């Protein structure tokens, strides 16, 4: 059965935290904490911790970018210099390492930065579809708890939401 979303809006992090605790403790069938997302105007690590470990892989893209940048940087410059071996260099090396390190360093940073951003975009699943359940007050001062679960469990989840004075509960049709 396809899952559906429901979103509850809260006035503060304390209420949202209590709701998450109850959701976790409820152990409902067809519902996992991994399917819960918090939507908030600022980052709140303590609240995010209640959702369980959610690893971030952006650094791997950074590492790949840094390695790629250094390699590509040095290879491009060295190959351009080595392209013309007949050039008279007066005994100096055709591919001088120390000065080439400057451009290698710049490309290491440039591609490292760009790959970090690309990694973040991939983690955000851009340009993927997002849940249509969103309230503009989330970007202002409200905290949203978005749950994806079996339609049969949704009433029970909404019941838990309702026990913690939500400002609003929004639902969607099953897909």
């Amino acid at each position, binding site marked *: 059965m396809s899952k559906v979303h429901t979103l509850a809006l809260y006035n503060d992090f304390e209420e949202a935290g209590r709701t998450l605790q109850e959701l976790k403790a409820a152990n409902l069938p067809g519902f996992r904490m991994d399917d819960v*997302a*918090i*939507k*908030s*105007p*600022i*980052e*709140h690590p303590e*609240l*995010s911790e209640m*959702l369980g470990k*959610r690893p*971030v892989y*952006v*650094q791997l893209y*950074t590492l790949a970018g840094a390695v790629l940048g250094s390699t590509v940087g040095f290879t*491009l*410059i060295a*190959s*351009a*210099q080595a*392209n*013309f071996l007949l050039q008279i260099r007066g005994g100096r090396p055709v591919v*001088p390492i120390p*000065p*080439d390190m*400057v*451009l290698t*360093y*710049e*490309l290491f*940073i*440039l591609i*490292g*930065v*760009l790959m*970090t*951003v690309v*990694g*973040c*975009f991939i*983690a*955000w699943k*851009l*340009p993927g579809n*997002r*849940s249509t359940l*969103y309230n*503009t007050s*989330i*970007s*202002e*001062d409200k905290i949203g708890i*978005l749950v994806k679960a079996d339609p049969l469990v949704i009433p029970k989840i909404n019941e838990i939401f309702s026990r913690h004075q939500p400002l609003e509960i929004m639902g969607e049709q099953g897909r």
Partner: protein
Amino acid sequence: MIHTTDESDIQIERRFVPKAKDISEDIAWAQINKDVLRSMERPRLMYWVIFLASLALFSFGVYCEVYQYQTGLGVADLENPQVWGLYIATFIFWIGMSHSGTLLSAILHIMHADWRKPIYRFAEAMTTFSLMTAGLFVLVHLGRVWEFYYVVAYPNERWVWPNFNSPLVWDATAIGTYLTSSIVFLYFGMIPDLAICRDNAKGFRKKFYWFLSLGWQGTDRQWANFRVAYLTIACFLIPLAVSVHSIVATDFAVSQQPGWHITSFPPYFVAGALYSGCAAIITLFIVLRYVFRFEAYMTMPILDKTCRLTFAIAMVWTYLNLIEYASVWYGNDEYAKQTLIFRATGTYAPYWWAMNFLGSIVPFALAFKSLRNHLPTMMVVSLLLNLGMWLERFMIVTPTFAHGYYPWTWTGDWWPSWVQWGIVAGSFGWFSMLFMLFCKIFPTVSMYEVKEMVYHRFMARKARA
């Protein structure tokens, strides 16, 4: 009950007077959005005065550039040995100006100095537009501007043979990297705020912000990835910023001109860059605080911290400046020594002394709290500091060319033509115009970070209570 106050009460009271807060923790989050978004809608009249004045200056600069392009570099009085003139001096000035924004923002971000939060956005924008302005001077000072690609590092297939060992080629690459990374850093840090703009805008602006905000909804996964990526970019930008101005310094330090061949040039340039950038942050802080009514966010304690930081950097610059003189004076290069004497006593001596006075003596005004808290004084001081920093660059370039190795090349009475001055003035107009446009289109105060700042302070107060 009659309460009497004696001296000991006063002493105790003084000891426990709370320090002024960087920001009030009682500001509502919704109010933060409202204040910042309002600034983009209805700035004070002064905004338009500054914008139009900038546009006028820029137009004059364009006129001068067109005249120079059509007539030739002769109208700028650029000829051997004065081949760089104001153009390269101003190029270094703008590169320097670009440093404080991104570099300080990145350093303070890594150090969790949360007072940066209300001011870092405009400082990063300053970096981007300064770099764009600096890049123009590379083109402007070329006789054959259509062959600008000679300075870019690219493969030799077209038989152009860019010299990969030349600092000028390094320079182009470093500036390109810094500009790209600074734009990425500025834009990336703005995504949550662009979502706020999207949620509050209508019509075309909504579509514009919708596109730029990349579907940001503030989910925990988005925040976690965003934080790691932002911190990583900040870590990359610190060495990058240092490398950019060091490379600009090597343009000079690896040459054979007397007075330039000094080991301390790279740190000297980096310190000068940070110095002028910090002074520019003070200027823009005061302007934006007034124009956009940001008194609640760009507060006096934050200005106070910025001024103290500027003072510290000014002292570092002063030290490195003295080291430069000492290296030449006690060194074994008689030509360099004569150039130094020429700077201090020759035709350009008034500017040399003015540079030293403005760069090393005027910053002592920042050491006094009463002056730091007086906005008009700080405005004047910050402008004077930047004038001093511009003169520093002028003094590095012009007197050295005017007093080289061969006496028959000496041009002690050389003075830039009105075309050069016009293009330099136009660059200030270009920078201000772009900056003011940015402030009108994008939020200059980071709303989500100010909310974090307010929230953490509020929680700390709650915990104390």
